[in-house]
């Protein structure tokens, strides 16, 4: 039996390329765009890399439904459990290192060694946020001294479904730097990948699908940023929006649309526009999409009679 018939490639014969169909990641599944549209993704030199789905606003709507459905379970999971799951994501990223180095190098026009450094930094960033899940409460919450017979406790709670417009330039490190804090805090996310370099984001979906992150916690859409961001900013069931990847014009329009249901808005930060995600991020992004709940719990003596619980 010849080698070819076993599926191997004989020396000298050109092997047919097996091209990857990049798909969206919504609700734990990998659908194509409901619209059936795709667009060409090229590398930094204009060479064709792949076709990515050109999502429509209906895909965005479906993603919100998936994110809302996942919110109860994800926000209700213990912080420790969320941390474990996010750490698992970092493990899976590490296992796909070669793939991400290639994709990041293509997307951002980096040399292989520079791309490798970016991927390493990304995995480290993910681990860093994974560690924060069960610590952020102690940092931003606490017991408040009040002038009365009450325990007064403040605890941070996740905001809800958050739309994340991923940075346009930093297709992987930037992406993870904005997505990880949102889900580490217990929110669920609808992510609009970088318009011109969406492939690392779509591949990240594959990583998330294999690392115990419940379906719908992160939903990745690729396509025209403006087309997707506007309906999401206006969507009444989205509770927050991170404008990291929006240019000044778009950011303004989105803020106006988001005002309708008083969404929490994170304006583009100086660090986002410089595409410099290499500096240590701090907890700012973690705390943006947290709401502080304060409870008053009666304690001690009640009234003049001195009775107590």
């Amino acid at each position, binding site marked *: 039996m010849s080698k070819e018939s076993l599926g191997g490639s004989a020396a000298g014969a050109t092997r047919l390329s097996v091209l990857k169909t990049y798909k969206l990641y919504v609700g734990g599944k990998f659908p194509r765009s409901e619209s059936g549209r795709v667009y060409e993704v090229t590398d930094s030199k204009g060479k064709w890399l792949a076709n990515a789905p050109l999502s429509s606003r209906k895909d965005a*709507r479906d993603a*919100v439904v998936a994110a*809302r459905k996942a919110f109860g379970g994800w926000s209700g999971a213990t912080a420790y459990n969320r941390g474990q799951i996010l750490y698992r994501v970092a493990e899976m990223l590490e296992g796909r290192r070669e793939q991400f180095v290639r994709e990041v190098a293509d997307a951002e026009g980096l040399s292989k060694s520079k791309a490798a450094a970016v991927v390493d930094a990304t995995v480290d960033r993910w681990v860093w946020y994974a560690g924060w899940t069960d610590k952020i409460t102690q940092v931003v919450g606490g017991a408040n001294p009040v002038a009365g017979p009450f325990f007064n406790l403040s605890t941070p709670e996740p905001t809800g479904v958050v739309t994340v417009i991923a940075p346009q330039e930093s297709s992987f490190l930037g992406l993870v730097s904005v997505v990880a804090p949102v889900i580490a805090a217990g929110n669920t996310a609808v992510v609009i990948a970088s318009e011109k370099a969406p492939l690392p984001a779509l591949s990240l979906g594959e990583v998330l699908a294999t690392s115990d992150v419940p379906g719908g916690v992160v939903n990745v859409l690729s396509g025209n940023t403006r087309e997707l961001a506007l*309906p999401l900013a*206006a*969507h*009444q*069931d*989205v509770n927050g929006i991170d404008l990291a990847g929006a240019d000044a014009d778009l950011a303004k329009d989105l803020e106006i649309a988001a005002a*309708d249901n008083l969404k929490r808005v994170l304006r583009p930060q100086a660090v986002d526009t410089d595409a410099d995600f290499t500096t240590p991020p701090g907890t700012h992004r973690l705390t943006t999409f947290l709401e502080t709940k304060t409870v008053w719990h009666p304690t001690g003596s009640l009234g003049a009679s001195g009775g107590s619980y």
Partner: protein
Amino acid sequence: MPTTTPPPGKAALTGTPFADVTASATTLRRFLHGLPGVDTVGLEARAAALGTRSIKTTAKAYAIDLAISMIDLTTLEGADTAGKVRALGAKAVHPDPTDRTTPKTAAVCVYPDMVATAKEAVADSGVKVASVATAFPAGRAALAVKLADVRDAVAAGADEIDMVIDRGAFLAGDFMKVYEEIVAVKEASGQARLKVIFETGELSTYDNIRRASWIGMLAGADFIKTSTGKVGVNATPANTLLMLEAVRDFRAQTGVQVGVKPAGGIRTSKDALKFLVLVNETAGADWLDNHWFRFGASSLLNDLLMQRQKLATGRYSGPDYVTVD
């Protein structure tokens, strides 16, 4: 538009090809087994094909309002309280309090002991009160008990009675018993319109659904209804299509129009619109009215309201903007 029809029942069938069908158990059985067999593949393909229609903009707005006006807003739980029924009644009258142009639902559907409460809640709004009866949902009780159940509901003011057929008798081939029970309930219902629930999920075959539809119509049902919503398989496009064909054929041959009510499992606007397409393409536009077609549903209404808000404002709505029932 509602058309006036002669009161259904045996008298209405005099002079039609079906005058003698119900003379005896034998003639009824012969008739029902003589009905053409259902082409399962064809039926499902047709239902699926009609489900692919794209309905947008003004047509969608019309369909959503029509669907809202066709809903029998239902709560049939052991845990139903008077408060819950009152809330349901208020919702039926003003489905979207933020937009008073929203049509009312057709009816609220409750258990017999909640009829008086429901009646009070909808008052003179025009929303009807439907009551399930006849030992719903199983239907496993003596005829006398079932009839007492019906009389109770009617006495409490129910405008419509939703009865269940005796599936045990039907599956055992005792069609006459099923028929006579429907006739008796129809009589006990008096002025109330009678909806006959077949529980299609328990009838096993499409042929059985067709036979049950004909028994119901022959016995004088005002509506034939797919399911109780209490079993695994409820209304599907295919079984509803089959029942729509039955009411179409029945009117063609007797001049008597019978309504159809799919119930259970219809949760999204998209599904509801698919059913409306089935109605229009099968029975015809005469049935596109809440006098002749209903949805037995509860969560469907919220989805329709969210879609309605989306059409009105251009923004996707969310569950925060409709009631939690």
